[in-house]
């Protein structure tokens, strides 16, 4: 009976995995389907990927997405790492408050965050556009960076930095030669996270993108609502492979440095 129970358990997990990956697999398959109407049975063709290379709108949007994601990564990682260091190496009165303030950005529905940003930006003259989108993406990335780097900083305690001080290293020397190298895996993981958050972000980009200038997810959304173009499957396949690839790298990296 033990064996049957075990088998059922494994089968269940298998079913869950199928549930999670089936749509993605189907979509990727359709990206290679010759039919524009997704007719089955499938006929293999890479024409949609070729068409992709000619689709100005999608290419421009992809470029925007990548550029914003890179800018977002740099800003969020630097600011977030600084904040994480302050929170976990110093004791000061507002410390718990600062940590609590990281909750609203990740728990409030993105719908509300997006619309409220739209309201404020319009009102104070920032308006919509790629700059507004960047502002929004960094806001969403910061909590993740602070938490991920913070966990790393916390796990190593102050003893290493104190040891460096007793050996004669000035605070600056301590930072460069001890703190930074040790934080590095956490910082890299956080940076990759930030990139993924920005690259995949849809809900708030939707409200902050003016007509004509957009990121990839927003363009895909419009295309879906107006009627399909099969190139969507092709670009979606690429996106999802990039996203999952990034996550795999993070998992590798975090494992690597995360252990004591």
């Amino acid at each position, binding site marked *: 009976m033990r064996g049957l129970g075990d088998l059922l358990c494994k089968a269940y997990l298998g079913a869950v995995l199928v549930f999670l990956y089936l749509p993605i697999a189907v979509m990727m398959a359709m990206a290679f389907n010759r039919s524009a109407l997704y007719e089955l049975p499938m006929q293999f063709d890479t024409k949609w990927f070729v068409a992709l290379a000619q689709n100005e709108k999608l290419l421009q949007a992809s470029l925007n997405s990548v550029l914003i994601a890179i800018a977002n990564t740099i800003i969020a990682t630097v600011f977030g790492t600084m904040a994480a260091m302050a929170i976990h190496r110093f004791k000061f009165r507002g410390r718990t408050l600062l940590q609590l303030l990281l909750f609203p950005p990740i728990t409030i529905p993105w719908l509300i965050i997006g619309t409220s940003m739209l309201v404020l930006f319009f009102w104070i003259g920032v308006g919509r556009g790629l700059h507004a989108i960047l502002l929004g993406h960094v806001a969403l990335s910061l909590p993740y960076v602070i938490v991920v780097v913070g966990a790393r900083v916390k796990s190593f305690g102050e*003893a290493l930095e*104190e*040891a*460096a*001080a*007793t*050996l004669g290293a*000035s605070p600056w*020397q301590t930072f460069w030669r001890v703190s930074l190298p*040790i934080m590095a895996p956490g910082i890299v993981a956080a940076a990759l996270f930030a990139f993924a958050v920005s690259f995949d972000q849809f809900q708030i980009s939707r409200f902050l993108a003016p007509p004509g200038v957009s990121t990839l997810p927003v363009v895909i959304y419009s295309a879906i609502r107006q009627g399909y173009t099969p190139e969507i499957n092709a670009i979606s396949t690429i996106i999802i492979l990039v996203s999952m690839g990034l996550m795999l790298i993070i998992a590798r990296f975090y494992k690597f440095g995360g252990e004591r």
Partner: protein
Amino acid sequence: MSVVEVARVSKRYDKVAALDDVSLTFGDGEFFGLLGPSGSGKTTLLRSIAGFVEPDTGDIRFDGKEVRDTPVHRREIGMVFQNYALFPHMTVFDNVAFGLSVRHAAATDIRERVMAMLGLVRLGGLEERRPRQLSGGQQQRVALARALVTKPRVLLLDEPLGALDKRLRQQMQIELKQIQREVGITTIFVTHDQEEALTLSDRIAIFNEGRVVQVGTPHTVYERPSSAFAANFLGDANFFVGVVAGMQGALGEIRVADGTAIYTRDPLPDRGAQITVAVRPEKLTIGPAPTSSGNGGAPTNRLRGVVTQAVYSGSSISYRIDVGVEVMVFAQNRTAQPVEPGTSVVLEWDPLHSVVVGP
């Protein structure tokens, strides 16, 4: 000449006094132990000397100069942390060389001194390893080498042997003492292990609740504790509470509740005063009958009672004897024949070992 001087240092955290008016001097080349229970202030004092804690009042002086305004990295100290705090991303060599390299020493100079130091701590050949590849004892030696290579003024050790198992600890204690002797550096170390404190220190300071309870050589502090706390914290003690009865020749006499007389060589206050005397368990002899004459005619300490417990520990036997109150005796296992519980026995000890510890 004292290398480090602590003068009337106090530190409070909220309502609790971590350090309360502490004054100590640490001499050149001395191996000084700070001993006490958790929270007694010993670690706070060590970290104050290092510069991680800023005292509320009082001064700390290195070679006569105040160090209040000197940040940690300029105090020229060497410190070994409880968990060694070895830099995981550097090799053993780079760890030990760190202090020299932040001072921009020449590469050849660094190489020479690091290798010499690794030889001193007997880690030659391991310089390319990473800390995680080393055993606990090896890591400890790297931490020591790293702290010593810059020739600091004072070496601070925070429970350095706490993470090691018993056998390794004993071995490391001997090595640590040897290295310290060879290098000749003033060393201050914190421990809660009394045996370790007694073994390693030239002098000990016992801490309790932020205050220094007693300072002295291991011999002094152990044989002549100045308070009941010190008597009980460092080793075990039997306490006898009674009233001063007067003098018997050169000996002081104390009467306890049931009328028994206890004699001591320590000076006593006036007759009638309340007094407590401590006697270490290993100072009592246990036997079936009183030994004749005792102290050459002078009265000796003698109690009669019944053995209630005998615990055999191989090289020694611990007895509990009911003499009206319970008394502990540690006896060396010389005859391989412990006294059975239920036996009537006579306990004796020299008045020299009755220590007055307070009222």
